[in-house]
């Protein structure tokens, strides 16, 4: 049923209905569908939803018209539909990811208007009270009022919003709503609407990371790092699809249009997925892609420190831990307070065999962590590094 939401909503908005009112009416129609369909399944579900939502819109307008008679005239002449945008999903994503909205609002509105999730489900997924999420959504819709929704939006903003949805699902604890799966579903729809290679790049990146999700936590909920994961748990079907999508994106590149950041990050993920055992990881290739990634930004240390930090790990594996640590030094001023910087340095110290330094770095990282599972993981690594060091000392 949720798959029908974008089509029905886009139809109403294109017909000239107000986005806010149309979205509310469709939510009500969905509620009614949940009640009615189990006993009376409609022959054409999409038409059923459109009809019921339209009836709601007319009812709402009638009660308003009773108060303001004159508005009846306005209703009799519906506004001309905005320009035809090829695909409903793309059209709605541009509405929901309007650059004037804050990222949290873009995410919430996208999940409701395009994903068809209920306010309750979205609230649960982000651990806020339902009333808070309802308010966030209605404020977002209100700030869209009066905006022209006929200009094609910025695909880059839409991609960022979808990636935010994905990351919320990937790194957060399990909730009833599969946000990561939802982001993948929406990105897949988006690839049908546009040929932009970065859309495929993002879809590939999400698929290639999502494939490893079943191995990321052990049964007790503890984080398992990539090098220790049970690769038998990886979803090979998803990896195959991710690689296929990435290849189709990369095949569109030209001299003037090198692969964008999602394609590059997907290529890195693909190389990790490709190794049957951690020792077979093709670090030189990964480093080459990281070189491309940092080259996409002017002054990457300041403007894309996460890429420089990722590259430092690859440098550590290709050129040695000392070289990797030197790379992280360049980031001290920008990232020195962040737990990820300390965690990477802990990993590189461990790689070099300097266990006391690794223990100190992991403990520092644990103090800066903002996620319980990550904090616990970093405390464990600090304790393990320290214990290994004591064991080494006592055996000498």
């Amino acid at each position, binding site marked *: 049923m949720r798959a029908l939401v974008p089509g029905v909503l886009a139809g109403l908005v294109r017909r000239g209905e107000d986005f806010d009112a149309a979205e509310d009416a469709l939510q009500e129609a969905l509620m009614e569908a949940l009640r009615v369909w189990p006993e009376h399944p409609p022959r054409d579900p999409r038409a059923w939803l459109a009809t019921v939502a339209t009836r709601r819109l007319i009812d709402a307008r009638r009660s308003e018209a009773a108060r303001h008679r004159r508005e009846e005239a306005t209703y009799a002449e519906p506004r001309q539909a905005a320009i035809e945008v090829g695909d409903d999903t793309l059209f709605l994503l541009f509405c929901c990811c309007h650059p004037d909205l804050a990222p949290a609002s873009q995410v919430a509105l996208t999940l409701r208007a395009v994903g068809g999730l209920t306010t309750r489900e979205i609230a649960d997924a982000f651990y806020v009270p339902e009333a808070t999420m309802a308010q966030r959504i209605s404020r977002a819709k209100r700030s869209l009022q009066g905006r022209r929704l006929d200009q094609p939006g910025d695909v880059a903003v839409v991609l960022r919003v979808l990636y935010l949805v994905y990351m919320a699902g990937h790194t957060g604890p399990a909730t009833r709503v599969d946000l990561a799966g939802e982001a993948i579903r929406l990105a897949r729809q988006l690839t049908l609407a546009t040929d932009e290679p970065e859309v495929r790049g993002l879809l590939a990146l999400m698929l290639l990371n999502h494939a490893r999700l079943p191995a990321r936590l052990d049964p*007790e*909920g503890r984080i398992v790092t990539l090098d220790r994961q049970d690769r038998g748990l990886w979803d090979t079907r998803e990896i195959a699809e991710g690689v296929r999508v990435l290849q189709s994106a990369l095949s569109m590149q030209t001299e003037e249009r090198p692969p964008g950041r999602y394609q590059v990050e997907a290529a890195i993920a693909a190389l990790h997925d490709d190794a049957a055992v951690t020792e077979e990881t093709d670090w030189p290739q990964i480093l080459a892609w990281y070189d491309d990634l940092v080259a996409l930004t002017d002054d990457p240390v300041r403007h894309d420190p996460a890429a420089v930090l990722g590259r430092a790990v690859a440098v550590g594996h290709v050129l040695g831990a000392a070289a990797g640590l030197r790379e992280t030094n360049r980031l001290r001023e920008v990232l020195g307070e962040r737990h990820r910087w300390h965690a990477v340095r802990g990993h590189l110290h461990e790689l070099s065999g300097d266990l006391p330094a690794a*223990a100190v770095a992991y403990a520092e990282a644990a103090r*800066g962590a903002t996620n319980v599972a990550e*904090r616990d993981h970093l*405390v*464990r690594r*600090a*304790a393990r590094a320290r*214990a290994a060091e004591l064991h080494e000392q006592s055996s000498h």
Partner: protein
Amino acid sequence: MPKYLLLKHYRGGPEPHRPVPPMDQWAPEDVEAHMAFLRHVSELLEENGEYVDAQALTPTRTWVRYGGPDAAPVTTDGPLPETSDLVAGWYMIDVESHERAVELAAYVSSEPGPGGKPLYEWIAVREVMSEGPSDG
């Protein structure tokens, strides 16, 4: 039923009954036992129907006050950051009585520390004020 906050602290409170080093300096198996116990506490509270919420806080604290008209907020890390109380997290529980809250706090405090022996950590028990008028 009254609600209570069981507060855990990074520092502050009465003199520790059993002083211990930071957890990253414990033996790995003691770290595992400690974390497993805390997971068990949450599960237990949920099974009992006493669980409301549990959260952990990062150790960074910023004090903020209104800076005055047209002025930026005034912030500070605190005058004596090393000696003042610093909350680490809480369980919020919904229980029959104050006695039950104390019982559960003592159970949390029995969490295993280095060597698998109880930590005897001080837990602050605070009753949450209810909203409406009381039944009595």
